[in-house]
């Protein structure tokens, strides 16, 4: 497939009072055409810096970027008409109506005014389009922001926290909209902290920590690569757990015995476990692979899982070594 977005070796250092701070440190990212791609990272990991650098708002120290094959930032003016973006929560003039806001943007982008109603309809704001933006709720402002990004009918849509402030219904609508847009051929890059949503919506993800990529690839592959391979085993008769544990240990398995189940590690073929136990008249009632979800993987890779009794600083996360292994599909 064609890469719509390519970033290689992106570096950006901010000058700060406490000394230089590396926001991006050799970051890499690839997004293929037609995908919904999740862009994840803890606070301060460099997500927004990456998106702003892509959009020409921040000048990188070094690195290569391409959108739709156009080298950035040199050719950004040529490709910007095909890129719709919202970065963080854009603010609008409170005394302008939603229609005015989009109409002015359409003028600025030399787009037909008919797009305004189309975009308002798409985000469900058409009925409230004549109201001033200052009367809007956070969720409505967020919808307006998405509408402003969709106005260009872009090939690449970059959304930074689009679900921020949306109610559950709004989040589901946003999810459906992403699926529809993607099905229509639009590539969507989605930055969000709602990892459950990312797992549901996205085809692929990139996870960033302290300015470096820690994982990337199709969601299923990332989950698989970082799943523990554990197996939960329960028996029809809990009293047989101890006997079952002995059988399995004798069979060369690692396990941990719990009160009502066994937790096995490194099991390639769960059927082997069932057969081994059945041969000893020990019958399983549950044989479930323990799968990691995106939140588990994220917390593990970024090292940001909360530790009871400790307060984590925003800069306390994992910075991976720069090796060829943390390339795509790591």
């Amino acid at each position, binding site marked *: 497939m064609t890469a719509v977005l390519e970033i290689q070796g992106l570096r950006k250092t901010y000058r700060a009072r406490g000394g230089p701070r590396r926001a991006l440190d050799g970051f890499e990212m690839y997004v293929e055409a037609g995908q919904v791609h999740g862009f994840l990272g803890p606070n301060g990991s460099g997500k927004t810096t990456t998106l*702003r650098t892509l*959009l020409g708002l*921040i000048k990188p120290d070094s690195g290569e970027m391409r959108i739709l094959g156009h080298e950035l930032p040199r050719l950004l003016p040529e490709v910007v008409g095909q890129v719709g973006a919202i970065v*963080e929560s854009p603010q609008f*003039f409170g005394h302008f109506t939603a229609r005015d806001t989009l109409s*002015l943007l359409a003028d600025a982008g030399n787009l037909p005014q008919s797009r305004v109603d189309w975009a308002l309809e798409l985000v469900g704001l058409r009925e409230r389009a004549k109201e001033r933006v200052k009367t809007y709720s956070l969720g409505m402002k967020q919808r307006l922001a998405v509408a*402003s990004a969709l106005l260009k009918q872009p090939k690449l849509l970059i959304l930074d926290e689009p679900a921020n402030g949306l109610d559950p219904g709004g989040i589901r609508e946003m999810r459906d909209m992403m699926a529809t847009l993607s099905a229509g051929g639009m590539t969507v890059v989605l930055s969000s902290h709602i990892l459950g949503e990312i797992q549901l919506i996205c085809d692929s993800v990139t996870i960033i920590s302290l300015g470096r990529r820690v994982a990337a690839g199709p969601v299923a592959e990332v989950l698989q690569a970082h799943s523990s391979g554990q197996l939960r085993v329960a028996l029809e008769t809990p009293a047989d757990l101890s006997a079952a544990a002995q059988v399995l240990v004798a069979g060369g398995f690692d396990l941990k015995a719990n009160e009502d189940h066994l937790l096995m590690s490194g099991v390639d073929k769960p059927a082997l476990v069932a057969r081994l136990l059945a041969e000893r008249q020990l019958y399983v009632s549950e044989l479930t692979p323990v799968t990691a979800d995106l939140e588990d993987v994220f917390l593990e890779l970024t090292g940001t899982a909360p530790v009871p009794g400790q307060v984590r600083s925003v800069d306390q996360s994992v910075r991976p070594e720069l090796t060829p292994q943390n390339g795509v599909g790591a």
Partner: protein
Amino acid sequence: MSLVRAERRRFFKRRLTRWLVPIGILLLTGIATALFFVHSKPTAEARAAAEVRAEQAYQQELGYFEQYKAECEKHNNGQPCQGPGRENFPVENFMPPSFDFKGMFQPLLLIWASIIGMIAFVLGATFIGAEWASGSMMNLLTWRPKRMSVLGTKLTVLLGSVTAIALTTLALWTAALWATGVYRGTTDGLTSGVWQSFGLSALRGLALILAFAVLGFGLASIGRHTGLALGVALGVVIVGQIGLRIVLELAGVKFADQYLVPMHIFAWMDKEAVLQDWSGAVSCDQNGCNAPEMVLTWQGSGSIALGVIAVVLVLAFWQMRRRDIS
């Protein structure tokens, strides 16, 4: 052109534009109305009454002179003292004020230029400052990533829009003063040369207004917030003008007014401003006293303003090009 259209629409849709421009027109209307009612047309009755008052004043002064004539001659070593002349009491001095359009139009342009100039400063500062503060500028740059072109277009639209406002209000101001001249004074003596001179003065007024707009825009661009422009304006007025005047006077600096902005504005609008140093070598003779003079010309004051504007604009465009937008 599409960005020009969008920015022009935005400029005139802004709440501040919709409030400040009518407020400016209201202020000018109030002043024009006051000018209209404090002046009156010279009538035969008014002239007759003025002649009576002039004669009364002359006679009263003559009476005072006769009363103190002996004492005056005593102090004058017996030489005769000269009494008041009748010609010193012209009837015109006793007429109710009449509006002379030819003589009043140019000085009154300063009022128009000052009011619209202040409005232009605030509009210029908020036009870009509010965009930066609200994040709309960042949003716009994701549509139009050519930063210099965006800032240049915004400045051009601002200058065009302020010019339209300035010319509209100038037309209203001229019409109001013309009406005052017609109904409460005179519009005589308006030769083509006079109109040409009026035109040049109005152009200088327009340039002053545009200079204020550019300064507001440039300062707010540098600070990426309206507050910086308004803060600098407040600082210039309080520290740079009131404070500076006090310090310069305490230090006994000659021609201290040359360092004050209002004097340069006067020089610009009136073509020159004459400063006198009464602390210096003052010479007196029969005709009065003379102090050393310094003349501020409109060319000199204009050059200083142009230099300041150039520095502010260069800084604004340079930082627009260089600084990250975060």
